[in-house]
């Protein structure tokens, strides 16, 4: 835990100094909502369409952020420095996934209200608790898989292409479950509560990929 907190604190400090990741994710999301607003030619959407737009936008914003996760480690010797320390290597995975989760949560603090203003038909307020539950589970999936994919891609020359090529198929089940879980929440006539079945699938997906990431991450750091 000590190493995880050390790496996480270092990453957050670096982000506060450079603002390289979070502002890009926020700008991307806001721009995408504006594009959808005009491209769909509708002032308001709800239900499955709203859930799809929100989920896809957050997914691509997450991939954008994941692409930056290990750049400082790669370019400034952070990998070597970490590997020289007598610490469990999976603490790097835990720290990076936690940083990614925090970035996504902060992104959503801005992006979800903007989505509510720019695109969402039904009022956002009563739907927030249900939506937060869905997004928390979705963020976990995005954080774990984003970290795993980024750790694979960072060692390749075409890392900007590798991340989405590997990441999108892996995230497809999470994307479907998130959109299905969020659809009733964002529906005009919906109850505002996400369906338990899709929440369970998302949670299961989170657990399975967290275990896979834990099992393989050590090998990704080998020379």
């Amino acid at each position: 835990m000590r190493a995880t907190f050390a790496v996480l604190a270092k990453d957050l400090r670096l982000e506060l100094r450079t603002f390289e990741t979070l502002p890009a994710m926020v700008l991307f999301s806001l721009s995408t909502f504006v594009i959808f607003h005009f491209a769909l030619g509708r002032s308001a959407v709800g239900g499955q369409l709203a859930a799809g737009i929100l989920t896809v936008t957050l997914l691509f914003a997450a991939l954008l952020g994941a692409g930056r996760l290990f750049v400082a480690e790669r370019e400034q010797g952070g990998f070597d420095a970490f590997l020289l320390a007598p610490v469990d290597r999976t603490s790097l995975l835990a720290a990076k996934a936690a940083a990614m989760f925090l970035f996504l949560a902060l992104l959503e603090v801005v992006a979800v209200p903007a989505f509510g203003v720019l695109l969402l038909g039904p009022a956002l307020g009563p739907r927030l608790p249900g939506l937060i539950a869905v997004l928390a589970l979705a963020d976990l999936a995005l954080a774990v898989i984003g970290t795993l994919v980024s750790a694979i891609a960072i060692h390749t020359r075409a890392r900007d292409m590798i991340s989405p090529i590997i990441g999108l198929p892996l995230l497809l089940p999470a994307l479907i479950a998130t959109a299905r879980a969020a659809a009733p929440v964002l529906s005009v006539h919906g109850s505002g509560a996400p369906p338990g079945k899709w929440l369970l699938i998302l949670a299961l997906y989170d657990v399975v990929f967290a275990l896979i990431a834990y099992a393989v991450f050590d090998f990704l750091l080998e020379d």
Partner: protein
Amino acid sequence: MVDQDQQPAIELRGLTRRFGERAALNNVTVQVPTGTTLAVLGRNGAGKSTLLRILATLLRPHGGEVSVLGERLPQRAHVVRSRVGLLGHEPLLYRDLSGRENLHYHAQLHCVAPERVERLIEAVGMGKRADDPVRALSRGMVQRLAVCRAVLHEPAVLLLDEPRANLDPAAVELIEPLIGSGNGHTRVLTSHDPGPAIEDADLVLGLRDGKAAFVRPPGEVGAQQLRELYG
């Protein structure tokens, strides 16, 4: 428990490491007694940095046997990590963090008390600039911080790749108590400049195309050997 007085601090037997088809190190054998300095000489690409990275546990050997402080690599790498310090070409410091922040980060990873960081910063004369971002520092200052990082956890074995690079004579004097031969460390030192490295060494390994051209005491390394090594 390993009795370090009974065996060399570093032992290589037929060490081989390849990058693709090319052997960066080929059947290298050498023993470094505890508390002594091995100078590794050779042209660019001879395998000097690869050797240091294997000893630092950053690279796996592909053949032969490697022991550091009695522990086999790579099997016992987790034990060795806390006992070696690497000062390589790269300072391993984040450019957007200050020197102090960088060192405190490394101190946390190595379970080192924060007071040690402050002592080292003062020791290398960086007290006034320790809160500046690393990107704003001169190369010599960055090298001084890199020395602090390498010795932060008081390693028994120091792996030094051109340790005096970018340093003026005054800075060399400042870092000498930390990485010099007088403090009991076992050291492996690489240099492109053979003269000072040989003066500093108890044993000299000449590498040519990844192979050990010679392993001799410094007094037996003459101009002829150096000409053959660098020629």
